[in-house]
């Protein structure tokens, strides 16, 4: 379990007090809104469509039960009883009052949490594999490295005013569950000649110009992590464009200058910077590796688990879809999807958060992860405890057997909350999920990633959806473009636009035609939608989306 060090609590309490004074100065007129805005953004406070929004950091998605209970308290006391999991493994509150936010930050500080660098042109929350320390296939636990990067990047004086926001993700091994190709820096843990290190990617990102990252360094020994990452960001900090917000991300810097130029500059900077680290980073890494040591796993029979699977079809179906293979025999990682019928994707009520905290203590070695797909994982649950865990999740509406299926949709808040959105996302996600549930087709369709964004900033990662949906404002009416063939994981790919957009009421029928076409053309049930798309290309799917054009 992640320990909160007292020194960190002092620091976040200090920052909360600073923000309290900044709010007071804004309210008494000593600060203008122009002066206050960057200060509130540095503390994760946005002004959205209906209210302020507070984004709280969950470093690399790892959170303990007491911290989760604090998130529940904030939802209940300062919001409308719920919070929203984000694709950076953070949580957002949609309705806080500015005058209450200093109190919210004080509550967070008590459990070592904060909202620092959840906005602004800074290094944002480092994300990683939600099954870190648990996955059967990981090369190494990525959390010590993520914590090293977090502690180094928090309040890093040189990187508080980057050209644009900066996002880092770490994959635990060959199988990428952290979407490293879509990050400013992506790090893939790997072994080479008996040493642990990273394959380093740079220049990925979504938004209005989606680009997949490229490998800048094949192998970086783990002890060089901080100087190398610092060299990348320092190079970008100088070379990145500040004249045009839309050309300021490192993906554009790499495109404009070329990878060879960037690599040469980064390597030169790296050699200079490495001399200044003097080993403090290596000592810190050793401490963090100890902090993230494995819990005391236990041995127990799994007969009860197998018997319950035979006796209870609901339990069997849920264990078929919502478990991930653990590295320890007898254990599993549990995916608790926040995508049940009628639920807004990624929304968690205070009661649900408290239940997760309790269940993690009772069954999960007190470890909880926020997943980048807006679900929650209990990484270490012994299979013999699953028959007791399942009914408790089910009673809270959290045992929907849909991880990785059609209704497990990533959706941004869209124009129901976001000031930047051009159309709504949430109702489209709910309608698609309801439609395919009612038809009972989810299981037959199998693995499918649908992702919806309410504007070109792509917070819903629509480019990476097998089916992506982008909501736009077309002459004052919501309109939805469909992209096909995106992939966040095995073979990273940016989806290609299929054709003209659809009005809101025609989106579900279009997706219905698309998936029925897939069921027709697939070789067998093991060929997923994305596999069939790769084999056949866009033509049969485009014909299903636009039957009139196809007939003509």
């Amino acid at each position, binding site marked *: 379990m992640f320990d909160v060090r007292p020194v960190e609590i002092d620091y976040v309490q200090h920052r909360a007090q600073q923000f309290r004074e900044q709010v007071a100065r804004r309210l008494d007129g000593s600060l203008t809104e122009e002066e206050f805005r960057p200060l509130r953004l540095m503390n994760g406070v946005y*002004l959205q469509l209906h*209210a*302020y929004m507070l984004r709280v950091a969950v470093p690399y998605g790892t959170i303990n039960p007491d911290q989760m209970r604090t998130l529940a308290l904030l939802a209940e006391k300062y919001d409308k009883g719920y919070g929203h999991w984000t694709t950076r493994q953070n949580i957002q509150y949609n309705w806080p*009052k500015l005058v209450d936010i200093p109190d919210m930050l004080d509550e967070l500080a008590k459990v070592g949490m904060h909202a620092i660098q959840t906005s602004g042109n800074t290094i944002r929350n480092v994300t990683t594999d939600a099954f870190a320390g648990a996955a059967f296939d990981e090369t190494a636990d990525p959390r010590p490295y993520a914590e090293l990067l977090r502690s180094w990047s928090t309040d890093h004086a040189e990187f508080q005013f980057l050209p644009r926001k900066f996002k880092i993700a770490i994959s635990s091994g060959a199988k990428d569950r952290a979407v490293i190709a879509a990050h400013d820096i992506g790090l893939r843990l790997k072994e080479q000649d008996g040493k642990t290190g990273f394959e380093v990617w740079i220049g990925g990102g979504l938004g209005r110009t989606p680009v997949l990252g490229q490998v800048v360094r094949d192998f970086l020994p783990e002890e060089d992590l901080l100087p190398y990452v610092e060299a990348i960001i320092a190079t970008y900090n100088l070379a990145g464009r500040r004249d045009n917000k839309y050309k300021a991300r490192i993906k554009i810097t790499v495109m404009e200058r070329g990878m060879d130029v960037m690599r040469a500059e980064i390597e030169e900077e790296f050699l200079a910077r490495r001399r200044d680290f003097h080993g403090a980073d290596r000592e810190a890494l050793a401490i963090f590796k100890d902090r993230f040591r494995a819990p005391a796993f236990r041995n127990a029979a799994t007969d009860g688990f197998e018997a319950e699977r035979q006796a209870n079809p609901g339990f069997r179906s849920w264990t078929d879809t919502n478990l991930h293979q653990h590295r320890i025999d007898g254990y599993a990682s549990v995916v608790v999807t926040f995508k049940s019928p009628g639920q807004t994707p990624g929304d968690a009520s205070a009661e649900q958060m408290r239940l997760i905290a309790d269940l993690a203590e009772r069954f999960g070695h007190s470890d909880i992860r926020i997943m980048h797909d807006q679900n929650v994982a209990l990484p270490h649950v012994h299979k013999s405890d699953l028959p007791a865990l399942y009914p408790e999740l089910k009673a809270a509406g959290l045992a929907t057997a849909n991880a990785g299926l059609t209704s497990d949709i990533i959706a941004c808040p869209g124009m*129901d909350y976001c000031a930047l959105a051009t159309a709504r996302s949430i109702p489209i996600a709910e309608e698609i999920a309801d439609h395919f549930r009612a038809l009972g087709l989810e299981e037959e369709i199998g693995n499918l990633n649908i992702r919806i964004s309410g504007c070109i900033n792509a917070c819903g990662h629509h480019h990476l959806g097998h089916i992506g949906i982008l909501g736009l404002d077309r002459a004052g009416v919501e309109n939805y473009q469909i992209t096909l063939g995106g992939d966040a994981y095995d073979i990273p790919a940016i989806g290609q636009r299929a054709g003209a957009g659809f009005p809101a009421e025609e989106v579900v029928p279009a997706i219905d035609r698309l998936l029925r076409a897939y069921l027709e053309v697939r070789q067998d049930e093991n060929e997923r939608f994305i596999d069939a798309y790769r084999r056949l290309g866009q033509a049969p799917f485009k014909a299903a989306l636009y039957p009139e054009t196809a007939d003509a």
Partner: protein
Amino acid sequence: MSKAFTPTANKPGVITANDLREGFNVWMCEDGWTPDPRKATLYEDEAIAELALLQAIGQADRVVGPYIVEAKRGPNGPEPVHFREAFRQRGPSNYFHGIQAEQQAEASNV
């Protein structure tokens, strides 16, 4: 959203912003600011609206981000033209929160 909207007699507009302390949406009305969009002042003259916007900007101790946006005359007061403003005046579609809930509470108290 166009912050540069210029109202005319044919295309009138309202001035809207967010409450500084609490964040909720407000509209400029005869005696200040109201959370009820139907009570907003409808501007049909560019010069008068721009003067009112300057006054709104001058009330930075009360509101954040004021702007003029198109509206139309309705039976109960100004109504939104663009769907974004309609959502701002109603609240989100996934929960009965925001102004729609406030208005219902107000109606049941009458």
